[in-house]
């Protein structure tokens, strides 16, 4: 109980000082009582976990919004997905006597953290978004990530909701011997391969032969089959057809749902599909699913827009596949534009910046409408080097290591020509950038009173 009080006091103190209280209260409380999560675990009825490499935060928020329309829930917002972030979510949902104000928790859990908390909580459903290469210095290698997930699953009695288009997730499902529901995109929407992108798991994880693909969506997500053994993409229980502004959601025996997409892009269509599949598995009606999507508020750094003199869109990048999706979205805007790329190499960003070279930044080279790219952050020079060797003209590249100065420079170039700005940053630069931009929106509003901004 003392641990909860300590956590709540820390929350109050942080909030009084205007700070973000998404992890630190839990850290303090766990220091006092390491078994705090198990203590909460005995007081909550069911926990739904979302994990995977990309799209965890968006999928968790979408699913939380859907289930939250039906009943009170506990969730860890803003991607605070390590043990301390999860503990913080429970502390903030607990009264001073330790009573929780909800029976269901929807939690985003980091893959590496998952085995350490799996036993403590009554996890009934595990939704896995996908398994890509991410932050190698933290997880060892991709195979280690799969082991971690497998280890965590074994410690629960949960059923699984997996991405059937992802061969690595499929392997996880086969190995786990659990009730597994697969979701996937409609077969006919797969594309033939055009660009060379990084694909993990292109070899059969059962027998080592190269997988045959009849089509791709992105990364290694596609219509795969092993020519040598029985390993193949399963027929998904939940099928999505991405139609741009909407996603058609089909499952056998029920009428199709036409879901309004609250966020753009194919990778977000997968997130909507994963969240809706999870919602169906826990028994949610279509009414709650629609309402959940309508009420959804986009987390920071997912095409988050700020209206200054010019429109600014902010995106988190953290690994090659996720980065490729973002760069693709940026270059699909035909307008002339200014791009800012901020790269840090702190623990939460990944200390190894090698992944920048696996991401397809050549898409920027191929985009004639890019007026300027400003690289920033602790590893601003490495990013500039990446662009130089990617063939981007040196006249277009500027290095401004300080992020605030980089933003000011971008605004001054963009405003004079009325161009949109796209900002891409790694994790530890994201929140400071949100704060800077929010402040700028505030002062912009006070000078343009008649103008209504839309910050989503």
């Amino acid at each position: 109980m003392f641990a909860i009080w300590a956590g709540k006091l820390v929350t109050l103190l942080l909030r009084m000082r205007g700070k973000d209280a998404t992890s630190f209260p839990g850290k303090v409380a766990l220091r006092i009582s390491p078994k705090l999560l198990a203590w909460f675990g005995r007081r909550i009825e069911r926990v739904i976990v979302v994990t995977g490499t990309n799209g965890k935060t968006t999928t968790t928020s979408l699913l939380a919004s859907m289930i939250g329309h039906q009943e009170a829930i506990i969730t860890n917002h803003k991607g605070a997905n390590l043990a301390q972030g999860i503990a913080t979510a429970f502390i903030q949902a607990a009264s001073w006597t330790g009573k929780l104000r909800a029976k269901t928790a929807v939690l985003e859990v980091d893959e590496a953290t998952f085995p350490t908390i799996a036993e403590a909580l009554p996890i009934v459903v595990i939704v896995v978004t996908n398994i890509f290469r991410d932050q190698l210095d933290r997880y060892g290698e991709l195979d280690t990530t799969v082991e971690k997930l497998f280890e965590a699953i074994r410690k629960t009695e949960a059923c699984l909701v997996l991405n059937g288009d992802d061969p690595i997730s499929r392997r996880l499902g086969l190995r786990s011997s659990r009730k597994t529901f697969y979701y996937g995109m409609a077969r006919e929407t797969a594309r033939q391969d055009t660009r060379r992108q990084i694909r993990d798991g292109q070899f059969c994880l059962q027998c080592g032969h190269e997988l045959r693909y009849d089509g791709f969506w992105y990364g290694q997500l596609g219509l795969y089959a092993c020519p040598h053994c029985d390993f193949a993409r399963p027929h998904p229980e939940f099928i999505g057809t991405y139609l741009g502004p909407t996603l058609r959601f089909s499952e056998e025996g029920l009428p199709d749902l036409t879901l309004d997409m609250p966020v753009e892009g194919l990778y977000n269509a997968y997130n909507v599909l994963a969240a809706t599949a999870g919602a169906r598995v826990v028994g949610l009606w279509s009414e709650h699913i629609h309402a959940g999507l309508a009420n959804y508020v986009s987390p920071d750094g997912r095409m988050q827009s700020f209206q200054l003199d010019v429109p600014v869109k902010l995106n988190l990048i953290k690994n090659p596949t996720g980065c490729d999706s973002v760069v693709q979205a940026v270059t699909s805007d035909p307008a002339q534009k200014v791009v800012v790329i901020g790269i840090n190499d702190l623990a939460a960003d990944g200390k190894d910046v090698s992944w920048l070279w696996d991401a397809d930044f050549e898409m920027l080279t191929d985009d004639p409408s890019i007026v300027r790219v400003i690289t920033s952050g602790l590893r601003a020079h490495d990013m500039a080097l990446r662009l130089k060797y990617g063939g981007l003209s040196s006249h277009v590249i500027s290095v401004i290591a300080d992020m605030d100065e980089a933003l000011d420079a971008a605004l001054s170039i963009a405003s004079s020509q009325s161009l949109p700005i796209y900002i891409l940053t790694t994790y530890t630069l994201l929140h400071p950038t949100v704060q800077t931009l929010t402040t700028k929106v505030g002062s912009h509003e006070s000078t343009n009173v008649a103008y209504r901004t839309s910050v989503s």
Partner: protein
Amino acid sequence: MNRRTLHIAHLFPDLLNLYADRGNILTLTQRLRWRGFSVEVHEVTHRDVPRLSAYDLILLGGGSDREQGIVAEYLKGYKAELKAAIEDGLPVLAICGGYQLLGAYYQLPNGEKLPGLDILNMYTSAGVGLPRLIGNVAIETPDAGIVMGFENHGGRTVHEHEPLGKVLHGHGNDGASGFEGVRYHNVWGTYIHGPLLPKNPRLADVVLTTALQYAGVKEPLEPLDDELENQARQAFLKLRMPEVETSVPSL
């Protein structure tokens, strides 16, 4: 002007591409093109038959343990040919897993030995319960100055050859010897990625000069504008390995 095309083979990019080997290929090809050379990159997947006599430089990258096992299996049939070519001076740049593959074997934590190509008197062992050697690394090399980057390897490598360099910061081959990598004929083996070559343009040019000589091209490499590369080197050292920066004023 001799502008013969230089042929670079990237062996098994489908299996060994863990540490941004694309960045190394890109650095080699761009630094040739910027000097007016033409270059062809042969992506030799595990389904292709490698034609060692057609290549002027081979790049062998890193993969996960599982993928490395598959590669060792595929390469078995070419072992003798590759060894003969290397003895004959074929330039090979081998990084992380590719570096380990040049040795006799790689022993996994469970004791299983993945056989290597056995070209160098060298072996690698992951040990039991030992931590991975992870972090920023800088070494001093005789012919390419300070080489810097990131290392992330579970394996400890022991060999009888010249090292690539002396560790100034980080772990190196085994975290104990104080040396990193290997130099043997025209082979460079190293755990350094990040990727290796973009921020180490001198090493890139040493590799290219050797490959051009091997190809029979006599022209020297003209200097390039490496201003951005040098800024990136200085910024990286200052931020992450300041003691190296102060100990070696000229990079």
